[in-house]
């Protein structure tokens, strides 16, 4: 009996232990579906007005129009996290739970980071080593965020040029070369309008969390913590 109870409890425990990842994955998929359906409706509305060909859902999902709209948002999200991960090594905001304490600025010691001879039995294998593997693992989060940022920004550039040139042709204008699109307002406007909103979200989170609280959230200081207490521990 106890075995079967444990077996039925296992999936539930797994769901609980991964609920944050699962919830945001579902939100991501739901939002992508919403974006695809509304984007397709908008595209086809304009196409019908101009008596031009409409797209099926599958055609829209593989179109440059959908790709650029997705990629321009993705690149800015990964840039936001990349900058946040890197800048918070050295930059601090007193009173913010998102920040380290001023005296902790920098890469910190082997002991603080539990690496090399200070690694514990639970430390990842490469944290116990020296040399390139320790260096690579020590920067793996920033590296992957940076690579995904560059990949999605490149995808925005490629798909953006294709979508822009389709519009150019519909407007009886010549398509742009790669070099021309690199200097085009369309590419940089799509880029900057996403970047500004990400930077606003970060600065808002850093500053608001000094004075405001959300009881129980690890993103907030404890409700009773002083405004000038810095770091996640409150």
């Amino acid at each position, binding site marked *: 009996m106890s075995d079967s109870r444990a077996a039925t409890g296992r999936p539930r425990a797994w769901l609980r232990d991964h609920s944050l990842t699962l919830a945001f994955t579902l939100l991501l998929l739901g939002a992508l579906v919403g974006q695809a359906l509304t984007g397709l409706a908008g595209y086809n509305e304009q196409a019908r007005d101009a*008596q031009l*060909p409409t*797209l099926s859902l599958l055609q829209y999902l593989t179109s*440059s129009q959908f*790709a650029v709209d997705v990629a321009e948002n993705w690149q800015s999200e990964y840039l936001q996290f990349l900058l946040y991960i890197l800048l918070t090594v050295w930059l601090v905001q007193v009173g913010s739970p998102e920040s380290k304490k001023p005296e902790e600025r920098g890469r910190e010691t082997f002991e603080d980071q539990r690496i090399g001879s200070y690694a514990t039995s639970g430390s990842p294998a490469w944290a116990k080593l020296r040399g390139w593997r320790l260096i690579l693992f020590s920067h793996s989060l920033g590296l992957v965020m940076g690579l995904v940022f560059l990949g*999605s920004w490149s995808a925005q550039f490629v*798909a953006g040029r*294709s979508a822009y040139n*389709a519009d150019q*042709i519909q407007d009886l204008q010549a398509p742009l070369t790669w070099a021309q699109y690199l200097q085009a307002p369309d590419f940089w406007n799509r880029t900057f309008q996403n970047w500004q909103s990400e930077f606003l979200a970060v600065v808002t989170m850093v500053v608001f969390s000094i004075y405001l609280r959300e009881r129980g959230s690890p993103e907030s200081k404890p409700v009773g913590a002083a405004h000038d207490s810095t770091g996640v521990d409150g």
Partner: protein
Amino acid sequence: MVVRQPFTMTARRQRWPATPRTLVVLLFLAVATGGCAPMGSAEDHNASRAALAFDRSLGDPAQACRLLAPGTLTELQNTFGACDRALPRQDLPVASRVVDVDVYGKDAIVRLDRDVVFLARFDSGWRVTAAGCTPQQGRPFTCTLKGS
């Protein structure tokens, strides 16, 4: 003989986190390659052939009219009357070869030796949206035949 790892909690912990990661990679690849999907030499060829077919059929206006996009056909008929009589009066240049072609999704521009033709790809194939076009510096092409 394939030896399967016993299904333990440890094995599960190692396997499951791969799911969202794989999903992100697949979505990223779909986005990265999506923009290129509609372009290709096959559609370059089809758009070029349609542009040439239009120019070559100008001597047979009824046939040329069938190669016009709906919006362009409507605009021509609203302005000049029945297509097969109005089209010859447009004095469109007749080209014989393709110089260059650019296809982006369902839109194409074909530069012929004596004309520039814009096209769109409908379910029935590539149709001419504008013809008799000449470039203007920093502005849209000026076209003898185009939609509204």
